[in-house]
């Protein structure tokens, strides 16, 4: 279920648009925050709050890469491996995360601390390689820097 705060937030968001349907993407973000991931229950909740049929809601949700369709670790490491990052060593960092933290792309570390999501370009090519941990940008990454960063989130 959506918390009362989330419901209120959604009502406010709803006012930004000429119809309820347009609030679907923000509503899915809210649901993801509330449920941790877009579970069937999350979709049902969004559908009933916005009056959008649930098969449609799920169709829309699964179209977008940033909505998660399985439970996630407490922190989401979103590492870019697109060309600019790749040529500056992003692949090595993927290997590093695997070896050091047991993080497979698309997987969650055994301790449930981190999930690793491989990203397409995140707009930090000038400071590649780069990643987002949850909502925070980290750029000019090295193995050592990653260690420092992840330490903060433990």
């Amino acid at each position, binding site marked *: 279920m959506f918390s009362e705060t989330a419901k209120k937030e959604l009502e406010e968001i709803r006012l*930004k648009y*000429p*119809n309820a*349907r*347009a*609030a*679907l*993407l*923000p509503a*899915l*973000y809210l649901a993801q925050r509330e449920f941790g991931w877009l579970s069937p229950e999350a979709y049902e909740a969004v559908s009933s709050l916005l009056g*959008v049929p649930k098969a449609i809601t799920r*169709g*829309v949700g699964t*179209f*977008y*890469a*940033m*909505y998660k369709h399985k439970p996630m670790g407490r922190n989401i490491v*979103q590492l870019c*491996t*697109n*060309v*600019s990052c*790749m*040529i*500056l060593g992003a692949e090595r960092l993927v290997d590093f995360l695997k070896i050091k933290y047991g993080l497979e792309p698309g997987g969650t570390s055994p301790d449930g601390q981190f999930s690793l999501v491989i*990203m*397409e*370009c*995140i*707009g*930090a*090519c*000038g*400071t*590649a390689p780069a990643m*987002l941990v949850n*909502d*925070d*940008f980290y750029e000019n990454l090295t193995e050592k820097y990653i260690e420092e960063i992840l330490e903060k989130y433990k």
Partner: protein
Amino acid sequence: MEKILLKNIENPNSADIAEYMKTGGYQSLPKALGMQPKEIIEEVKKAGLRGRGGAGFPVAMKWTFASADPKFPKYLLCNADEGEPGTFKDRPILEKNPHLLIEGMTISGFALRAEYGYIYLRGEYPAAKDILNKAIAQAYEKGFLGDNVAGKGFKFHLAVHQGAGAYICGEETALIESLEGDKGQPRIKPPFPVNVGAFAKPTVVNNVETLSNLPYLIGTGGEAYAKIGSPECPGPKIYCVSGHVEKPGVYELPMGTNLKDIIYSHCGGIKGGKKLKAVIPGGISTPILPPDKIDCAMDFVNMPKHGSMLGSGAVIVMDESVCLVKVCYRALKFFEHESCGKCTPCREGTGWLRKVLGRIENGQGMESDIDLLQSIAGNMLGKTFCPLGDGAASVVQNFIKHFRPEFEAHIKNKACSTG
């Protein structure tokens, strides 16, 4: 050149409205509101402003179409989806100079008689979202947005709509679908958004950088503005350079700056003095150029003459250590991931290309694979619903066109010779 778009961004408080106003911000808006909407469009026309989102479409023309449509309300959408790999030119505006964009949008909104604006912001820019929301709140507070903008009786409301990770939403009709709460799949055109866009109303979609030109353009006037940059596409341009250069980053330069100069003078040349192997000049969808082809003015009109495109002005520089088969494979992985799935050639073709490139990369390619790649790409090019599929096909074609021996070597040696 004086900085127009990236003005003041080194200032840590540049995103704050007070700072912005201190340095001359929100002065063009009242001026614009004192003009007739038509006059503003006329200035934009004189300025010769072209869209900075990639296609370089003349802004005044688009605006004229939307203004001519009698339906109301009209919508102004700012394309802040910045998804083209290699591109990071809008981000500094969004994060460091949000009021420039807001002022630009408000002016544009007035010119279009649009009452509602949305900034379609890619989901991967969470920081920008907070910054924009804060800036919008400040602008409301100061009366630069709302039911009575700057006390001039003009109503303009602005909100941020956050995307959720789909490159295709940068395409304007997909963006509209996504704004309306649907999958970001392109729409059939015609009707064009200027007539039937967001919520079936006349809609203009412009890039962040495009709209951010407006305060300066209106401030100095179209004729003065047109003196900056190349005559066919005037104005300042943000080039964003990544990869193997000494000083990667964003560079605001006059439109039409030579690519070679960008790399060698502005960015300090190839990193570590290595040899240049290839340059992708305008984001990954634009044709790759070998080192001998980079002496060209970077603008919308000139680049096609050199076999590439300005695109988003995202220059990716690759030195000799880079395996281009791998880059090509990675690019196709991107296109496969981002194909929206609506049309057959792109949905099936991107995956197929990626698979064939993958086996070449793995050393399992066959001699016939290069022909196969060419043929698949040829079967896609020009047959897809939107330019995304064309982009995927042309990447493969251009990589092979300029670097065929590297592909052949990969297949023959069953391994990469680059290392």
